[in-house]
């Protein structure tokens, strides 16, 4: 679930169903293998909390396609955010990077790419775990409204949105709606 915060999410339309999400993740997995000419040195790092389930599924697909078990980590970027003091920020979930990232190709995974500020924080956090050879970004939904020069490498679907809309990626698919009080 992406900002704005508060209220109850009310879905207005289904953007992708479960089968469409699965096909998108399969395509993304093929693209990761193609782009990196295999999976040697590739590590997947999921952004807490929305990216975790997506990353697990991508890692599973990578194994099915190429037979390689890539390391999967999780990253909570709360302590690296640039809006600490501007809104409530709590590190809610575990950071667990199981391998030294120096020399790796890190594929960051999140559910929705919006302003880019979470990814900015994630790039900062990653440097504390080594110096990756490259960092790539995979997202299920790119909803636009970037506030920083950040772009995804792998996209499930480009979804034009209004700023006040909310995109919800869940196991049944992707919903577009808004928060109501």
């Amino acid at each position, binding site marked *: 679930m992406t900002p704005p915060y508060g209220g109850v999410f009310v879905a207005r339309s289904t953007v992708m169903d479960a089968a469409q999400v699965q096909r998108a993740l399969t395509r993304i997995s093929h693209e990761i293998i193609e782009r990196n000419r295999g999976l040697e040195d590739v590590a997947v790092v999921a952004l807490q909390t929305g990216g975790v389930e997506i990353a697990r599924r991508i890692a599973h697909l990578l194994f099915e396609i190429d037979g390689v078990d890539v390391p999967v980590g999780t990253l909570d970027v*709360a*302590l690296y955010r640039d809006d600490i003091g501007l809104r409530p920020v709590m*590190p809610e979930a575990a950071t667990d990077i199981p391998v030294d990232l120096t020399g790796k190709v890190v594929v960051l995974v999140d559910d929705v790419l919006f302003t880019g500020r979470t990814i900015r924080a994630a790039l900062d956090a990653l440097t504390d775990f080594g110096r990756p050879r490259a960092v790539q970004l995979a997202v299920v939904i790119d909803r636009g409204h970037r506030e920083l020069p950040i772009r995804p490498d792998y996209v499930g679907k480009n979804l034009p949105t209004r700023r006040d809309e909310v995109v919800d990626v869940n196991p049944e698919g992707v919903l577009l709606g808004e928060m109501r009080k």
Partner: protein
Amino acid sequence: MTAAFEPQGPRHLLSLEDIGPDAITEILRLTDRFVEVNERSIPRVPALRGKTIATCFFEDSTRTRMSFETAAKRLSAEVLNFSAGSSSLSKGESLRDTIETIGAMGVDAFVVRHRSSGVPEQISRWVGEGVSVLNGGDGWHSHPTQGLLDAYTLVEHLHGGAGTGHRLDGVRIGIVGDVRHSRVARSDVTAFAAMGAQVTLIAPSTLLPASLEGWPVEVTHDFDAILPDLDVIALLRVQRERLADGLLPTMQDYVEGYGLDARRADLMGQGTVIIHPGPVVRGIEVTSEVLETHPRVLVQRQVANGVAVRMAVLFWLLGSGVDIT
């Protein structure tokens, strides 16, 4: 988004009784995150960049001050150190003037230790709006971060961490020593009880508070009898001044009744752990032999967790923006 966020009221940590069980649980849960940060090869996050924290210790302390300072630096905050001995206080400046002078330098939080109970609370009324005061130990009153780090250390020992709602339900904890003159004891009792533990105070009557009204504890004077039933032995320092006060006839009497020696260590249950807030007076509350050879002395974990707990508290007060009342 940002317009909807309104800064909260005063954000202080004066005692654990003040913040209550829910906040205690929340801080311990948050501590897991900072334990992980401290295990990294670069144990530093930018969370409190631009904040300034003044440690004002009007009473000697090495570990608490260094622990707070380390915690603040690992959150990328600036740290100002003030010690009473080398300050204008010794030239006759009042406490209030000292605090206001430091405050005028642009401080976001004061960490205060003082030999008199209530000084941190007093200071919290002098500081400007939006400035936090953290109690680093005041008189016999309170030492909230010690209570938090002791509780965290026990939860971590039993469950590996506090983040998934792990608690101390049913854990039997004996607090042994000079409870009466201990700010640690009071904060430990509150923290342990908040996490569901059963606490027994073990001390001679002269070293217990005059009134235990409102303390969620039982009391015994018979250490040997209760020892096999305890899961945790929380030792407190027993200062030699207590002899001069006439509260102890001789140190030897105390050691015989309440000192943790090899004989008593043999009476401890399988898995029972020993904690001590430090500094340890060897040969009184515990022998060197037990301290050095017992397999379940958690003193080093307490020190390491002290940094993480203080990072959690500092972030909770200065960074999180969550409602703390």
